[in-house]
C-alpha cells in the first residue's frame, strides 16, 4: 500500500506541458490567476474554459482529474454562490418571494465569484498535476533567489521541502508500524467519538515525533559528513533550461491575457 503512493497529486505521464520549465509554469500559473480575476464576461470565462481544456489535453491529463480538485472546495463554492446571489443589492428584479430577492446583478456577481474560484483551483491543479513536487521546489528556490539579498532563506526553504518530500513515505511506513505495535498492545484507533479517537492518537504521535527528531539529528550529521554547508558554492545536478516550448507557452498565455483584456474593454 505504501509502495505506490504518489507524491502530492503529480500525474506522472510525459507531455509537452510536463516538460515545460517549472519556473515558467509557476510564473504562467500566476499570470493565469491574474487573467481569471480580470475576466468580466461569460464570453471571457468561455475562452478561459477552452484554454484550460486544451491545456489539459496537451498535458495528457484527463479533464476530470482537474475537476477532482474542486471536490473538497464544493461547499465553499456553493456558499459563495448562494451568499452573493441572495445578498447583492441590484436594480433588475428577477424573482421575489417571502424575504428572498434575486436580481440580475446578484446572479451575475454570484456566477463570476464562483467561476473565479473554480478556475483558480483548476489552474493551480494543472500546475501540480504536471510538475513533480521536487521540480516545484527547485523552481521556488530559483525564483526566490533574488530575495537572498534581504536574507530570505531561499535555498534552505527548498532544501526543507525536498527533505520533507523524501521523508513522507518513510514516516508513513513508520506510522503504520507504530499503529500496528500499539494495536497489538490493545490500542483502539477506530471506535469511540471524536474526542476519544483524538486521545487514542497520543500513543501514536509521541513515538512518531520522537523518532522524527532522532531522524532529523541523524540526517543532519549525515549531510554534514557529506560536506553540506548551505547553498553557497553549491552546484546542481538538475539544471533547468528554457526551451522553445517554454517560449511558445509564454506566447499562448500572452495571447490569452490580451484577449481577456480586450474583451474587458470592448464588451
Amino acid at each position, binding site marked *: 500500500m505504501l509502495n505506490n503512493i504518489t507524491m502530492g497529486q503529480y500525474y506522472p505521464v510525459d507531455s509537452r506541458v510536463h516538460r515545460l520549465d517549472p519556473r515558467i509554469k509557476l510564473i504562467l500559473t500566476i499570470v493565469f490567476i491574474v487573467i481569471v480575476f480580470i475576466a468580466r464576461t461569460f464570453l471571457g470565462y468561455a475562452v478561459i474554459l477552452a484554454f484550460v481544456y486544451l491545456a489539459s489535453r496537451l498535458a495528457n491529463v484527463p479533464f476530470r482529474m482537474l475537476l477532482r480538485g474542486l471536490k473538497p472546495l464544493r461547499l465553499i463554492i456553493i456558499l459563495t454562490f448562494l451568499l452573493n446571489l441572495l445578498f447583492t443589492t441590484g436594480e433588475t428584479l428577477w424573482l421575489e418571494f417571502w424575504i428572498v430577492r434575486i436580481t440580475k446583478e446578484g446572479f451575475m456577481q454570484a456566477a463570476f465569484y464562483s467561476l473565479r474560484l473554480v478556475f483558480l483551483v483548476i489552474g493551480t491543479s494543472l500546475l501540480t498535476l504536471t510538475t513533480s513536487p521536487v521540480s516545484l521546489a527547485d523552481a521556488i528556490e530559483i525564483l526566490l533567489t533574488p530575495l537572498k539579498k534581504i536574507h530570505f532563506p531561499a535555498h534552505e526553504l527548498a532544501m526543507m521541502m525536498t527533505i520533507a518530500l523524501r521523508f513522507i513515505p518513510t514516516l508513513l511506513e513508520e506510522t503504520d508500524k507504530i499503529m500496528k505495535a500499539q494495536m497489538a498492545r490493545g490500542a483502539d484507533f477506530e471506535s469511540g467519538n471524536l474526542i476519544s479517537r483524538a486521545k487514542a492518537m497520543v500513543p501514536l504521535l509521541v513515538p512518531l515525533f520522537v523518532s522524527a527528531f532522532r531522524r532529523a539529528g541523524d540526517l543532519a550529521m549525515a*549531510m554534514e559528513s557529506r560536506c553540506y554547508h548551505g547553498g553557497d558554492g553549491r552546484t546542481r545536478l538538475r539544471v533547468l533550461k528554457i526551451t522553445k516550448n517554454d517560449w511558445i507557452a509564454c506566447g499562448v498565455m500572452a495571447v490569452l491575457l490580451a484577449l481577456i483584456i480586450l474583451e474587458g474593454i470592448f464588451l
Partner: protein
Amino acid sequence: MKSDSRVQLNDVSYSYEEQAAPALSGVSALIQPGEFVAVLGHNGSGKSTMAKLLNALFVPTEGNVVVCGYNTREEKLVWEIRQRAGMIFQNPDNQIVATVVKEDVAFGLENLGVPTEEMIPRIESALSAVRMSAYADKAPHMLSGGQKQRVAIAGILAMEPSVIIADEATAMLDPSGRKEVLETIRTLNRQKGITVVWITHFMEEAALADRVLVVTDGQIKLSGTPAEVFDRVEEMREMHLDVPHMTALAGELREAGMPLRPGILTVEELAEEVERLCPLKSAT
C-alpha cells in the same frame, strides 16, 4: 595529496560533556593506506565516537586526529577531510537526502561545487561500482535496506574518497543485506585501494578484516590480525565480546588435548585442521 592517505590517532581523548567520563581516552592508532581495519566493541565502548572523530564530526578533547595529512582540529580543513574520509551511518533511511537515487548520489558533489557535466559520469561510475546502476531513477523508499546502504556508499564514492568509515553500517540490515554491503566494501577496498575503517559488533565481519582493533571502555585493548585477536578467547570474554563460534570451538578442542593450530576462524579452516590431525580412513 594521495601520497598521504593514512589515518592517525595520536593519544586521542574525547568527552561528550566536560565532567563526564571520557568516551575515548588515550587512543593511538595508525591505519595504513589501503588497509581494511575492523573496530570491534560492544555498545557504549566508544567505537562510534572513534568513527565520528575520523570524519571531523567531533574534534578530540585531547590529542590529534590526522586524516590524509589534515588535522581535524583545523576548521578550514573540515571539508577537505570530509571529502577524503567518507562516512556511512547505521540507519539506511536517515542518510538519504534526495527523492531519487541518482540525485542522492549527487548530493555530495553538489555540495563540493562540482560542475554538472562532470557530475554525471562520476555518479554513473559510483552507482556501477556498487551495482546499483539499474536503480538510478528509483525512489529510495522503494529499496531494501542493503540497497539503501549501497546507495549511501555510492554517494560517498562519487566524492572520490581515500578512506571510507562505516559506522555499524550493517547493524540494521538482514543477513543478506549485511552480506551485500560487506562484499561491496571489500571489493572497493581491494580494487580501488580505498582504506576502510569498519566499525562493527559482528565478529564474523571483523574476521574478514586485515586487522582488528578491539575497543572497550574507550581504549584499544587488543590489536592484530583477526586470527591473533580471536585466539585470545579469555581476554575477549572478559570484555563481553564473543569470538567466532569456530574459534571458540577450536579453543575448547585444544583444551581437551587436540593440538590444533591457532588462528582458526571459519568452519572450513577447522574442518581442514581436524582432517589434518585425524585423516579420514577411506577404507572401512
